[in-house]
């Protein structure tokens, strides 16, 4: 028996030693690492970038990276949607509004050492609109189709002067030129890498590309020769942490020093922590439930408008009940938006009545929202011929969006609200990039989606999301495939006049019609929220939700 005891003691000692090693290793990481000689900003993202070609992306994960590598002719002043010179020093618009001539900045170099000049500008634009351009095949250029089709040509006047010709006046074009879609990329770099040019992106911006480890991180380093002066941080790393709790923990544990999309339930925790700072501002965005009204067209000649030979066909997600306006209105009555905003968004948003943010000009204050009234919803459904409701599918994306923190939860809440009025909904959860492809293809009867404004102009919401021309199957901006000719005419008129009062009147009229037709249930305008460590200074929240790290310093 004595020997048994000593054996137990031995086993016990072994166990204690093993535990000791484990504990030592656990705690050793808690000792503060000596401050790095370099200033490194690691930013926690909720998802990885799709691509690094600024003209070929539509998602915020991609643009947050490209916005620090590339620049455009003009840019937004920090925190606003007013433009100021960037790669262009000045410009002149012709009297008829159809020609804008830009004087380009001298002495700017791309990261590969080549000069920024008119050739680079021509290249960046032409590859998107000219179907015969050798690089046109390498992208889909969705944003060009949504917002830039009025540009007919970009021509070189001399090495530092370019002229942009528009086929018709476009009141929002100047401000749209600050967008990422028309950022200037290096033609020499493209010539070297051809189709893989944007696996080695080269721009003129404050940070240079170093590496991209898929689903893990993208590393950028400071461009010491940046024309405005070197940035104050040496390295900028975007780290992918899809789990929001892990993201917050990483921030608290000093593994990252900034993050996006904190979970609304964790705001109190962040604000109470003296080592963290919480940045929040009303968002220039909209979150909506789109009801597929049924028909779209194939834009075979890629000119952005439905031509005579491009016929209207049923979208793959065509669902008869949703072609009926009363049904769509019933769905609006069935959903309690203020409860969703209060309890799921945790008050971090405002209830949306119309499809654009209330602080943009042209917002129609007079429209009264559909109140939450399930009884009225059932009544409308019965009138429409569906006394027992119907079954359908609600598509939802699995990842956080700027306008919707937890889409599957919101989808489940909507599922529950609709069940109370006999509409039985199955959820179809799809991963984000596939989701974009499929909803742009109209495969859904209903889907959750949203939009962050790009240029502060109402056209950027209204025309892109609700215009008849945007019902293009495969690249639709209008995922309810709402094809009202009167509304499209209002939008077309509104973009072609420079008279702001007139434009506002036209947009307000459109909102009334849209409200009646109810192709969408407008849910919320979410706030933009980020969290940083307290020693990260200089970050400015932008209404466009773009992240610019050039002014940021770490004290």
């Amino acid at each position, binding site marked *: 028996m004595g*020997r048994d005891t000593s054996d*137990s003691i031995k086993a016990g000692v072994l166990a204690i030693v093993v535990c000791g090693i*484990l504990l030592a290793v*656990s705690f050793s990481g808690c000792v503060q*690492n000596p401050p790095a000689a370099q200033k490194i900003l690691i930013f926690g993202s909720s998802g990885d970038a799709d691509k690094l070609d600024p003209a070929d992306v539509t998602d915020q994960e991609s643009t947050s990276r490209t916005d620090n590598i590339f620049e455009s002719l003009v840019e937004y002043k920090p925190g606003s949607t007013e433009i100021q010179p960037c790669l262009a020093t000045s410009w002149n618009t012709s009297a008829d509004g159809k020609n804008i001539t830009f004087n380009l900045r001298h002495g700017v170099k791309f990261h590969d050492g080549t000069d920024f000049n008119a050739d680079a500008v021509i290249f960046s634009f032409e590859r998107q609109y000219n179907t015969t351009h050798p690089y046109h095949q390498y992208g889909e250029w969705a944003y060009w189709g949504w917002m830039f089709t009025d540009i007919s040509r970009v021509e070189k006047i001399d090495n530092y002067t370019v002229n942009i010709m528009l086929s018709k006046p476009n009141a929002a074009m100047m401000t749209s030129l600050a967008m990422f879609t028309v950022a200037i990329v290096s033609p020499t770099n493209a010539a070297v890498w051809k189709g893989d040019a944007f696996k080695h992106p080269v721009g003129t911006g404050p940070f240079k590309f170093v590496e991209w480890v*898929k689903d893990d991180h993208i590393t950028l380093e400071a461009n010491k020769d940046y024309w405005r002066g070197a940035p104050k941080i040496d390295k900028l790393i975007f*780290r992918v942490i899809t789990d929001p709790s892990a993201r917050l923990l990483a921030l608290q544990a000093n*593994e990252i020093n900034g993050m996006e999309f904190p979970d609304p339930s964790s705001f109190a925790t962040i604000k109470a922590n003296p080592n963290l700072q919480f940045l929040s501002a009303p968002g220039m965005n909209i979150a909506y439930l789109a009801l597929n009204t049924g028909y779209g067209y194939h834009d075979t000649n890629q000119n952005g408008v439905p031509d005579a030979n491009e016929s209207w066909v049923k979208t793959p997600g065509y669902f008869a009940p949703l072609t009926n306006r009363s049904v769509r209105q019933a769905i609006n009555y069935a959903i309690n938006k203020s409860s969703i905003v209060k309890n799921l968004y945790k008050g971090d948003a405002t209830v949306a009545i119309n499809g654009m943010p209330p602080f943009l000009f042209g917002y129609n204050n007079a429209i009264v929202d559909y109140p939450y009234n399930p009884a009225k919803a059932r009544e409308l459904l019965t009138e429409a011929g569906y006394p027992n409701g119907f079954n359908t599918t609600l598509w939802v994306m699995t990842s956080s969006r700027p306008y919707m923190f937890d889409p599957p939860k919101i989808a489940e809440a909507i599922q529950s609200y609709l069940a109370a009025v006999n509409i039985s909904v199955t959820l179809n959860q*799809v991963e984000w990039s596939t989701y974009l492809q499929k909803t742009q293809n109209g495969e859904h009867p209903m889907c959750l989606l949203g939009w962050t404004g790009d240029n502060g102009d109402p056209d950027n919401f209204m025309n892109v999301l609700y215009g008849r021309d945007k019902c293009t199957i495969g690249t639709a901006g209008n995922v309810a495939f709402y094809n009202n000719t009167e509304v499209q005419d209002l939008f077309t008129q509104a973009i072609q006049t420079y008279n702001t009062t007139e434009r506002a009147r036209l947009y307000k009229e459109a909102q009334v019609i849209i409200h009646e037709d109810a192709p969408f249930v407008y849910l919320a305008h979410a706030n933009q929220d980020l969290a940083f460590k307290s020693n990260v200074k200089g970050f400015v929240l932008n209404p466009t939700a773009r992240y610019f790290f050039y002014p940021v310093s770490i004290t």
Partner: protein
Amino acid sequence: MKWYIIKRLLQIIPVILGVTIIAFALIHLAPGDPARNMLGQHATQQEIDQIREKYGLDKPLYVQYFIWLGDVLHGDLGRSILSHEQVVVEISDRFPNTIELAIAAMIFAILIGVVAGIISATKQYSATDYTVMGIALFGISMPVFWLGIMLMMIFGIFLGWLPIGGRIDLLIPFHRVTGLMVLDSIITGNGAALISVLRHLILPGIALGTIPMAIIARTTRSSMLEVLRQDFIRTERAKGLSERKVIYKHAIRNAMVPVVTVIGMNFGLLLSGAILTETVFSWPGVGRLVVDSVYARDYPLVIGCILVFALVFVIVNLITDLLYTYIDPRIHYE
């Protein structure tokens, strides 16, 4: 012995072929057009026609199978629909991460499981025995993803002792050599990295290793009990050998035989468990890749992952089999 190995190798060939058939069938059984399933929604008609011609999708199924198999044997598993990267690259990027996790889990499972089993057996029917076996029973009844969440909750969130995601603190510079980060940090002499990597391995390793640990503990115990009862042990005792020597020299060595088999047989549990553990801990391994690619309907990637998993599993089983025949003095190879 050599002949036995060759015979076993020959035996697994039809199994591997069968696995490839199932993987191939996946492209065709899944709903939708097979060419689109391989290329994705946004493929142009030109690309679809190219694929149709290349795989001869108009040709009979068995011809298509052989064309595809030929590609696979050349290492071409196609391209991921989402990332457009080659499937073999996507998998090989992540494979070392899963291997390291599995090894960490196995080390934990074997160390704790064997020791616990031995202690339990030598103190049969004592309070220790019942406690250990009780814990083991809980161990095999726990869903690995719940255990992962609980560990994460307690040690990561509430106590804040350990990180809950990723493989390494990104502020630490790290140079990748083999992809096995523990090895790499040792090779490059990077102490800070080594500690960070080990810290990130602890919770997922424990989560993944608990079920195998419980199984190993139980098997060790019953194996030890059986061995301890046997005649030759009594002979050794009668000879006057100290109890400790009896246990260490003879009992353990003989008891380990079925334990080795159990470790091999439960390797499948490790692979399945890795899928769940990697999801919980955001571990960049092949397990999470399987889930992500099934969700995204990225069929080329799904098939690639299945092939890799099945292949690894089959090979490990084979090795275990051979090891078992080698070390068990009682087995005669036919």
